[in-house]
């Protein structure tokens, strides 16, 4: 009886891994890195994680969790409320919709697709924030830099996420 309770707890904990990892990555994006020149540009870490889990574990990261992470990010980073959640949800929707396309694709293709999805997400967020924020549109160059950083960092973050995913599978 004890084993089953433990097993159940273990299972629940496992199911929470994608949400937890995405949350941690989102918070990580905000912690000061003290790397010269980098504090002005934050890559879209949360988007990378949502994209990754939507491809590989659509069963474990639903729209609700994604929404919660997006809203939390907006609240913490001082960006217009709802704008971050919107693009995360749309990114997830696109990936879910193209599930067949993403099936068993080599990493290069996944990376390229991320570059496309992130481009759309970045542009849409820039428009949303520009329309909603009292200060109006921000210089688009900074959004561009953040986008390029995100694409460049995706292999590294993806590798880390894949490790987490392997760990999750191996003990299933």
């Amino acid at each position, binding site marked *: 009886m004890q084993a089953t309770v433990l097993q159940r707890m273990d299972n629940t904990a496992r199911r929470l891994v994608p949400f937890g990892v995405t949350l*941690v990555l989102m*918070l*990580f994006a*905000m*912690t*000061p*890195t*003290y*790397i*010269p*020149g*980098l*504090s*002005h*540009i*934050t890559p879209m870490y949360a988007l990378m994680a949502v994209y990754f889990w939507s491809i590989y574990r659509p069963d474990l990261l*639903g*729209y*609700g969790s994604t*929404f919660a992470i*997006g*809203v*939390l990010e*907006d*609240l*913490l*980073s*001082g*960006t*217009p*409320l*709802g*704008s971050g*959640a*919107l693009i995360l*949800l*749309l990114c997830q*929707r696109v990936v879910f919709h193209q599930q067949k396309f993403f099936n068993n694709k080599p990493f290069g293709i996944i990376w390229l697709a991320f570059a496309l999805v992130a481009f759309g997400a970045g542009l849409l*967020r*820039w428009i*949303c*924030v520009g329309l*909603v*924020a*009292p*200060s109006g549109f*921000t*210089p688009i160059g*900074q*959004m561009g*830099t*953040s986008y390029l950083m995100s694409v460049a960092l995706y292999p590294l973050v993806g590798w880390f996420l894949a490790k987490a995913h392997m760990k999750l599978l191996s003990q299933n």
Partner: protein
Amino acid sequence: MRAPTGQISRLGTLKTLLQRFAFLSLIGITFALMLIGKADTILVERARDAVSDAVTPVLRLMSSPATVVADFVNNLRELAAIREENAELREANGRLLQWQSVAQRLESENKSLRDLTALVPEPSATFVTARVVADTGGAFAQSILITAGQSAGVRKGQVVMTGEGLVGRVMQAGLYSSRVLLITDINSRIPVLVGEAGNRAILAGDNGMRPRLLFLGNKTAAAPGDKVVTSGDAEAFPPGLPIGQVASVEEGAVEVEPFVVRDKIQSVRVVDYGLTGILAQQAPPAK
């Protein structure tokens, strides 16, 4: 527990429908949130305060490894340059001692003049030191989260500094954490004086590394190397706080390099210059 195949497929369709419904309603909610954020800022501000108060301990924990690494790297760098620095410090010390005697002389002179004119002294500034736990710099907002809030006496609108110069202003004060709007944020507008001539201008952020000077009388009024300090107009900042120096003067744009190096801010001082008066402190924050 096992359901027949027909039931499974029906369950599957139901699940897809539910998912689609969830997606559409959540998208609806995000638009509603954007509208609420535009209309009712107080409600959203309270939510932001509550969330940052709750998450600050986690962020503090997460930021500590980076702080340790940064300290270590700094130590190494300092060790390498210790000899040169020592020589520089010796020289600086000599110069400062001279200045000290000048300052002492001026202080006594000042005091005697004050006595002579029976001047009412300005209220002295009090400050709180806080750690920076999150740097939410991005393309859309430039702010930092610090570990001091209303419980430590931090109020909206107070000035945030480091030893080098001005960092920004408190934009939201939660109970245990506060958000500081940096001088580089696109919403930041600070009345300043430029150069020795003290030409008036407005320092405006654009989310980039260097804020710009707006409304400077004429472009020749600023030259690279000119110091930029707060002017004290509009009473948001006391006069004379160091901000930075003019980095480049190009057609239509005068850029200012802040004295505060953004990547190195580990802790800041929230200074209360009593600009809102003593009574206003007990009243709820304005706006």
